[in-house]
């Protein structure tokens, strides 16, 4: 399949700090590519580089065959961008905001009104159209921004946390739209909702401190962890010495702690009993499972809760 987005060795520096450090990325046409990472890992900068809103310090890229460094205006015509912040002309109603964007993109009025009507009925927002942005809920604003991003029929869709803080209904509406229309768009989505990423993404990149630390399909990423198992332990009480016990155990690769819950990574051939036996008198619940994307993510990034 044709590649829509290609980034090669992109470096973006702000002063001495590298927001992106040698990032290479390829997104095939019609794919949904998710980018996950901790706060400040460079996800939004990556999206802004693709959107040509941010000029890389080094590296090259092509969007639908157009050079990122030289053809910004042609690239922008093909991009629908939904930023993380809520952005509206506050003096205009939501409808007027949509009309303004449509007109700026050169859509004829009749066609524009048809498109708006189709989108707002699909996203259940007809009664909100003539409200001002300040008068509607955050979820409505986000849905409107989503509509605005797709209004001019872009081929590339860049979504920065599109469903963060939205209720389940809103999330489902957007996800369903993305799944149904996925062949129309090449989508890059930043999401901190790992479940959502598992549901909709064809490929996933994990970003940490500006570097891509892992990239692949969900299956491929899970295969990198197939040698590992997760033992989930809930204890009646925890002690300081637990850390010493876990650190000393040859069966434990790493572990994380949340309250009375221990998440212990072991090799696949380690039996769960060899772990549970370490805390036998205090175990409330114990189970073993394959690593999820969330576990892989936690392993890949330098999260403080992980003890190696």
């Amino acid at each position, binding site marked *: 399949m044709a590649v829509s987005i290609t980034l090669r060795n992109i470096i973006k520096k702000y002063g001495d700090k590298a927001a992106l450090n040698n990032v290479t990325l390829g997104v095939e046409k019609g794919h949904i590519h998710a980018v996950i990472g901790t706060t400040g890992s460079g996800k939004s900068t990556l999206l802004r580089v693709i959107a040509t809103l941010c000029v890389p310090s080094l590296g090259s890229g092509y969007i639908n065959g157009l050079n990122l460094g030289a053809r910004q205006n042609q690239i922008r015509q093909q991009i629908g961008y939904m930023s993380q912040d809520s952005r509206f002309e506050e*003096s205009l109603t939501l409808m007027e905001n949509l009309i303004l964007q449509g007109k700026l993109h*050169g859509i004829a009025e009749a066609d524009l009104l048809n498109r708006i009507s189709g989108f707002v009925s699909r996203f259940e927002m007809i009664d909100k159209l003539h409200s001002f942005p300040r008068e509607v809920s955050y979820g409505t604003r986000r849905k409107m921004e989503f509509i605005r991003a797709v209004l001019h029929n872009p081929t590339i869709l860049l979504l920065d946390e599109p469903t963060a803080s939205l209720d389940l209904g809103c999330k489902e509406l957007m996800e369903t739209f993305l799944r149904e229309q996925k062949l129309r768009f090449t989508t890059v989505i930043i999401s901190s909702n790992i479940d959502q990423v598992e549901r909709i993404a064809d490929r996933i990149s994990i970003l940490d401190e500006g570097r891509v630390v892992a990239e692949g399909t969900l299956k491929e990423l899970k295969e990198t962890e197939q040698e590992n198992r997760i033992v989930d332990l809930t204890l009646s009480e925890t002690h300081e010495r637990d850390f010493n016990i876990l650190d000393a155990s040859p069966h434990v690769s790493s572990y994380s702690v949340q309250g009375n819950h221990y998440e212990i990574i072991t090799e696949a051939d380690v039996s769960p009993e060899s772990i549970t036996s370490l805390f036998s008198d205090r175990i409330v619940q114990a189970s073993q499972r394959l690593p999820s994307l969330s576990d892989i993510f936690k392993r890949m990034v330098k999260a403080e809760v992980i003890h190696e």
Partner: protein
Amino acid sequence: MNNVLAALWHRELIIYRRQFITAGIMPILTGLIFFFMFFLPYKTLLPVQEMERVIPALVLDSLLLTLLITIYETTARFYWETQRSNGMASLYEMGRYHRQPSFFIAQAIISLSKGFVHLIVVWAILIFLTEMSFERINLQASIVFILLGALQIVSLSKIIGLLAKHVDSLSKFLYVGLLPIMMISGLFLVKGAPLENIAEIAFYLPPYNWMAGLDAAFLRGTIDYGFLLICLIESVFLLWLSATFFHLDGDS
């Protein structure tokens, strides 16, 4: 270009209608208040013959003030909002109009149109109130200088809008920069012979050199080609400068 002009025109009209008191009434009122602030004391101090020479000068100053405030507020604020604010910059950039000549020109046309509408309203009110005679005014020359002056204000406003880091800076530039320079230029401290009262620097200082030419056209009914040449050169220079700033802006 048509798309951009239509879209921005639509936006401006809606916002203008919704914010009519601040965007429409206030600039017009500022010009009128300025006029009466000087007119009433002069009227009590000066004889009638002297007043006939002072009134056109005060009318001219009120028109300049109205034009300056309207164009500056429209242009600088718009440029700051669309190019600088975290809220809207990316949105307009993604609309492909960031650094596009069509965006630049469309906005200039809108600012000039609003400026001239306000100017005509103030002018009409003052003619009605003062029963001022048109006989001595060289209208053709006046229009040329007003147009060049307005272009200079548009250019400066664009540069300021693009340079301002915070929206508050826009008012600072106006009230600490542009207005005081306009006031001390001498045009606003007239008594009978305005041209002689203009500070020498105002002849060369954009965007005020055009006032000198306008002053001659408006008050003496003559066209000064020397001023016109300086004014043309400085208008072209400022337009080029603002276009360059506009073009270079945006590489974050």
